[in-house]
């Protein structure tokens, strides 16, 4: 009954459309496969990419990032800037003006009250909102009239596009979520599983961790879109199976995030049914050097804390030699193929913030050996270098993942060639990336000498990302091992730059500061040893048109434009 009503609505809308370029719902069903299944359609309660993407089909932010990283308006006519008066001159407030006449999928009008409600919902202290950091420093959100919202910040915000921008902070409907604030958020299963939105599709059925069915939104603002009448969003399985179902059998139209070896993807593509598309965001696979001593002989309060400096990794020559011994070109070829590039920077993109260093591109085993020799690290009878009784013997941890294990094996071999002993360890990702303070294996605890993983930042501004390496922000027992300064890096000059970046509004100047900070962490100190700038690979069938890979926002950002070729 409900579907019929929706379909009738859809037909009515298309009938009224003046010029039908492509009619709404004329292209049938599009089938999407994610090997991680979405478990909830409320991104504020999850934070997982799979859930954000699945909800992006239904609910939208005021503005989002396009495929080039530029902010484009969605529910507003223009993006507020200092130039057009939307952002106040002191950078302390931003005023959004909603496009007139927008409707929720249930036909009620979208108002500024919904936007304000969204902020209240996320900022509720008991709610456990995953996007809370987007509302960092917000003192108030006011509705000036039905279509105008003003967000005020505690201090000047050079980048005021946190709240309501991007897939992580979409607008939810007040009428639907009103009774779901704070501690009651999890009780609203119906709303969490079927949010009413302004996006091109609405939820027809949601089966957690399995499959979602959407149908075209009859009240979508563009009467000709979306071209598809329905979406089937299947979750589960593994990356190989997902890639196969698009590239080899053509059962699905789109497969997300194919973390597979390059030769495996190439083989699948050879079937000719579809293509793998790569996009590069700021995701960097890196080796983190532990500046503190992780020795198990230390007691729990000093182990891997700043109280115990690392016996040999505090010597910059050791860190530099370890970096020089790595052949990054080969790592890219083995692990990522066209989905990877050699990385020497912590912030490899967007262009304004990228240092574009190339000091690490060439492997130099001889140079690394000479450097260690010169610094007094000499080979013992077992072939392992030592100085004053300290042997360079490294434990090297990472999460369990085929490509990472190949990297470990290669790097262990290269380090062996410069007289460094390596013990490999791989840890289940749910333990390694989990913040359980009781587990000795989390990446925050860093009970090993070096560890390898990938990290990135959301949006296009690296300020928060770079601010992580502040003195005192390291995980430590007193903070329940929470903290983002994983390496326990500490440099007062760096902290000064963090503060300077927070005060600077000029985009070119911000770029220069960020590059300087990037170099302090990588080129000048080798605290962080970047390996590969990783792209995201998704697969689409040849008949799918309108798809644009977007690494700055949800990949579902322009699903309204997708159509059958």
């Amino acid at each position: 009954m409900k579907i019929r009503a929706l379909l009738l609505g859809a037909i009515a809308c298309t009938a009224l459309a003046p010029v039908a370029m492509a009619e709404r719902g004329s292209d049938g069903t599009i089938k999407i496969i994610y090997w991680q299944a979405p478990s909830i359609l409320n991104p504020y309660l999850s934070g997982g990419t799979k859930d954000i993407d699945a909800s992006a089909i239904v609910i939208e932010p005021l503005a989002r990032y396009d495929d080039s990283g530029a902010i484009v308006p969605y529910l507003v006519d223009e993006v507020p800037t200092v130039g057009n008066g939307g952002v106040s001159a002191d950078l302390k407030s931003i005023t959004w003006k909603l496009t007139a006449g927008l409707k929720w999928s249930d036909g009620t009008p979208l108002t500024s009250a919904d936007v304000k409600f969204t902020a209240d919902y996320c900022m509720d202290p008991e709610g456990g909102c995953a996007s809370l950091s987007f509302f960092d420093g917000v003192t108030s959100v006011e509705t000036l009239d039905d279509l105008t919202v003003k967000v005020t910040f505690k201090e000047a915000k050079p980048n005021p596009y946190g709240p309501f921008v991007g897939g992580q902070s979409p607008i939810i409907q007040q009428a639907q979520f009103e009774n779901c604030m704070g501690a009651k958020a999890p009780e609203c299963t119906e709303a969490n599983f079927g949010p009413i939105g302004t996006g091109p599709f609405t939820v027809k059925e949601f089966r957690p961790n399995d499959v979602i069915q959407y149908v075209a939104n009859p009240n979508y603002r563009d009467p000709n879109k979306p071209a598809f009448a329905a979406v089937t969003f299947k979750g589960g399985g593994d990356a190989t199976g997902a890639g196969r179902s698009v590239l080899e059998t053509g059962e699905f139209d789109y497969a997300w995030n194919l973390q597979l070896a390059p030769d495996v993807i190439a083989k699948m593509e050879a079937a000719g049914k579809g293509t793998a598309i790569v996009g590069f965001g700021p995701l960097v696979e890196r080796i983190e050097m532990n500046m503190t001593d992780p020795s198990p002989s230390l007691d729990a309060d000093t182990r891997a804390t700043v109280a115990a400096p690392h016996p040999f990794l505090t010597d910059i020559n050791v860190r530099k030699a370890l970096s020089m011994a790595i052949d990054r070109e080969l790592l890219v070829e083995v692990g990522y193929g066209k989905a990877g590039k050699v990385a020497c920077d912590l912030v490899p993109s967007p262009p304004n913030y990228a240092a574009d260093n190339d000091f690490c591109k060439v492997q130099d085993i001889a140079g690394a050996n000479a450097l260690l020799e010169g610094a007094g690290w000499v080979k013992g009878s077992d072939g392992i270098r030592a100085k004053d009784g300290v042997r360079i013997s490294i434990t090297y941890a990472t999460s369990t993942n085929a490509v990472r294990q190949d990297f470990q094996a290669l790097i262990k071999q290269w380090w062996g060639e410069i007289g460094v002993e390596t013990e490999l360890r791989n840890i289940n990702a749910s333990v390694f990336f989990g913040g359980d303070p009781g587990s000795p294996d989390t990446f925050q605890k860093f009970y090993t000498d070096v560890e390898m993983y990938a990290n990135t930042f959301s949006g296009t501004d690296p300020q928060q990302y770079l601010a992580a390496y502040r003195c005192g922000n390291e995980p430590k027992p007193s903070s329940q091992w929470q903290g983002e300064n994983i390496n326990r890096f500490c440099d007062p000059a760096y902290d000064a730059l963090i503060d300077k970046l927070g005060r600077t509004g000029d985009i070119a100047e911000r770029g220069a500061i960020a590059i300087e900070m990037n170099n302090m962490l990588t080129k000048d100190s080798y605290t962080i040893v970047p390996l590969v700038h990783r792209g995201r690979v998704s697969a689409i069938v040849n008949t799918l048109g309108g798809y644009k890979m977007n690494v700055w926002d949800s990949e579902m950002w322009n699903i309204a434009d997708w159509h059958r070729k």
Partner: protein
Amino acid sequence: MLTYTIRRLVLSVPTLLFISLAIFLLLELAPGDPMAQVPLTVPPEVKEKMREALGLGEPIPVRYYKWLVQFFWVEPQVLIDHLFDTKLAWHFAPVPADMSATLLNTLTEKGLIKETSAGLEMLVKDQRVISWQTRSPVMDIVVQRLPQTIWVVGTAYIVGILIALPIGIYSAYRQYSIFDQSGTFITMIGFSVPPFFTGPLLIVIFAVHLGWLPSVYDTIHVVTDWESFKFQFRQMILPVMVLALQTTAQISRYMRASMLDNLNQDYVRTARAKGLSEAVVVMVHVLRNSMIPVVTVIALGMPAIFGGAIITEVIFKVNGIGQLLITALFANDLPMVLTLTFIFAIMIVIFNLIADVLYGVLDPRIRYE
């Protein structure tokens, strides 16, 4: 027999309670964090807030008690409410002071508000077992997952048994014949090759190269007519094949061994000497006695149907109970894992009891008192 069954049923209650405590403590001790899958871009202090919202701050005994109440008291009431349209699993709570007028109106219209001496009270649902990943009641998802698991894993089990029994019987009867030798060879290979290999292999052959069968199971498909039944049949072939291979291998081995034991017994010689036909000797006398250990194996395998088949479900995206358990485990969704494993434990206790009762029926020498 009846008293024995009743006594066992009564005894199983403390057993199950103990099992639930053991599983709960095991999960509590295990390292892991429900926030592990949240991207690193979400700051740690936000994650800490999210953890608190899940109730992780409460002490362990409180959480165990809450789960017990929710599972044994609230969930059955919810089931009754669902079946008979009652309101057992609801209770009255004071209306929060900051509730908006419009919401208050709609609630009053629905008859959910009443006035007491203490002020306005509203009818709210009791807290059920809530999954951390989906923030929704665990039991609803379990009910949603059961059909595809029972369809696929159950069919595979039955198919496996139906193939295994004749193979086992005939192999034993004609021990060391070519049939026996090749049967042994094939079943052992079937048993020693893990499903994470056979699954993709079958997909590559039948879905990619031949294009005959789908590689992804459609869980929302509904059988209404002949065409849709054919589709359902086609999509079940591959996962059922992978699973049945394991069942067949295992059960036919037990069947064969058990038959061999009995074929050499004195009573068989006696039966033959009496002039009974070979068919009667084998199919009635020997088979009945040989079924005793095999019935145990079959009964003990039954809970696995409800437990799902983790690897096969993941490979073919059947998304049943097994896939639910593994995703919950990787996401450290403790309420989900606890509830699923506990339901599994109940199944095991029940089918163990069934196996024991069947023993008594099949073998009159066994006396329960």
